[in-house]
């Protein structure tokens, strides 16, 4: 599903470069639930942004769903993200003016579904995250965990090939975190959803199929 070869990403100026990724080669298979772990500043988020087409690598090869992403124009990237990728971030950042069902409908509207289809599929997605009874709530009427679940519903409503999550539980208490992690596991097991999740909770390594460890922008094969 995802394959990288010597992926690098350098920030900053030529005189003062920050080598966030220094050549990462990985392979993530369809249906895998992969964790990306490592110390703070090790390049986890940076790697996720490259895999999720939210940023452009400095060098290296990135193949997603058999497509060489280097050849994508900006417009094609947008469209590819819309149709094939889903994201859950640390901040839920739901538009305050939208109800849960409207927020989840948005990606469907963007691919051109009519309002009836949007409604049906958004409702299904919200039911999948156990928010079937919060369809018409505005974001400030929901708890943090519930908002994050709306964000997850928004991420999966287009049935993406890969779901990316960057520390989705960082702002949540442990109880809500468990709900989210269990939700991911359920999506992975029941629907075969491919998931790539960045986490710095050590116990999360037991929840995922496999962990990609990072250290200073490189794969860290010492960790177990």
């Amino acid at each position, binding site marked *: 599903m995802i394959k990288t070869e010597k992926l690098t990403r350098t920030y900053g100026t030529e005189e003062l470069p920050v080598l966030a990724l220094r050549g990462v080669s990985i392979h993530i298979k369809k249906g895998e639930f992969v964790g990306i772990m490592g110390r703070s500043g090790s390049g986890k988020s940076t790697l996720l*942004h490259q895999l*999720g087409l*939210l*940023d452009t690598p400095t060098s290296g090869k990135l193949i997603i769903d058999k497509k060489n992403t280097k050849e994508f124009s900006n*417009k094609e990237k*947008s*469209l*590819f*993200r*819309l*149709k094939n990728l889903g*994201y859950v*971030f640390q*901040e839920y*950042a*739901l*538009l*305050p*003016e*939208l109800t849960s069902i*409207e927020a989840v409908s*948005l*990606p469907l*509207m*963007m691919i*051109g579904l009519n309002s009836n289809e949007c409604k049906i599929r958004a409702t299904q997605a919200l039911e999948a995250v156990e928010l079937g009874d919060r369809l018409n709530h*505005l974001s400030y009427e929901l708890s943090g965990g519930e908002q994050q679940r709306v964000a997850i519903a*928004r991420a999966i409503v287009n049935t993406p090939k890969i779901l990316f999550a960057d520390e989705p539980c960082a702002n949540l208490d442990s109880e809500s975190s468990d709900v989210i992690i269990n939700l991911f596991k359920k999506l992975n097991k029941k629907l075969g959803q491919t998931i790539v999740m960045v986490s710095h909770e050590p116990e999360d390594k037991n929840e995922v199929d496999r962990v990609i460890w990072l250290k200073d922008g490189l794969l860290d094969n010492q960790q177990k």
Partner: protein
Amino acid sequence: MTKDKKGFLQKIQSAQTTLNDLKVATFLAIKQVTRSNKWSLFLTISIMSLVFLNIAFIAALMSGMVETMNSQAIDTQFSHIKIEPPENEMFIKNVKSLKNKINHLNGVIGSTAHYKTYTQFTYDKRKDGQDTKIGSWIVSSMSPEEEKKVSIFHNSILAGEYLNKNDRDKILLGKDISGGYTSNFIHESLGGSSGLKIGEKITITYPNGIKREYTIKGIFDTKNLFADAGAFVTEKEMEDMLQVSNQATEILVKTKNINNTAKYIQDFRSIGITKEKINPWTEYTGIITDITESMLMIKILLTGIGLFVSGITIFIIIFIGVINKRKEIGILKAIGMEKHTIVISYLLQALFYALLGIGGGLFILYFILSPYFAIHPLDFPIGLVYLEILTKDVIINSIALIVASIISGFIPAWGVSKKSILDLIWGV
């Protein structure tokens, strides 16, 4: 599939995408407006309404002033068409038959002929030659009945009465000759601040030396200072003084359609008025055009300030909106929304504020200010001024406000939407 067909399908597809983007942008705009804070929405629309009202009011007031000046010029000086003697001649000849022919033309309401002559006025207050006041003014003649069809002097009598056909030693004075009343030129007038009274006597010396004493029969006030510095005697009286008959210095013609003067003038030419000068009223109102032009500068300036204020208002609202939603916008972009869709959603909001502002402003203008001023017109020295709302002005000002709003909304919306996804979500 042939290449042509493929290109065609691509075009259809991209048109559909554009349409869909517009739909999504509209959806976002509607939700952001309708679910925003009601008070700030109300205040925004109020500001936009007041700005538009301001612009539209200034335009309507200035048009009203021009309208007042124009109708005064028409009603007291030039009517719609003015006929003057041929080059190098003092008078128009055969006036009676000319007027008769003109009055029978289609579209003519009436015509009136005037003799006009410079004269000297003398007012001997105590009738002892000790305290006399002298001044020069033009005296015109009129046939009181035919004059009524063309001008408004009969409706502008301040004191006393209008002239009668057979009056001989009676005179009608403008308020700026009599003084008193509401005269603007008390010191130049004969009667000073107290003004001349009905029944008092003045002496007029004609250019040919003839002197004649007149009793003041009436005093008029048209609010047109060019007309109010004039005086009238009857046609018979003037013909005797000047020792002429059946002639005139000018003939004024009032028509049914003020916009059709060119055609009427053609008609006049075709019935044999060939040598005389014939001009529409607009030829004589150069001063009004000058005043209008200087008012235009004020209008542009005030309109510009109004548009600037509305632009800043929209800019601030959209700017605060997008700055507070950097993360949300970043995530919309991450999901796959293109920046033009986000920008359009904010432009639609700006458009919405502008349209409601225009609506609110027009509502106040048409249903509150205009009816109010119709009952209580502004009493300017140039006359009563009503609000004259011109559709042309409303359209131009509306478009200007919409354009200003859209530009002001575009700048912050574009500035934020063009940032990269990571910048927006993790912000630097």
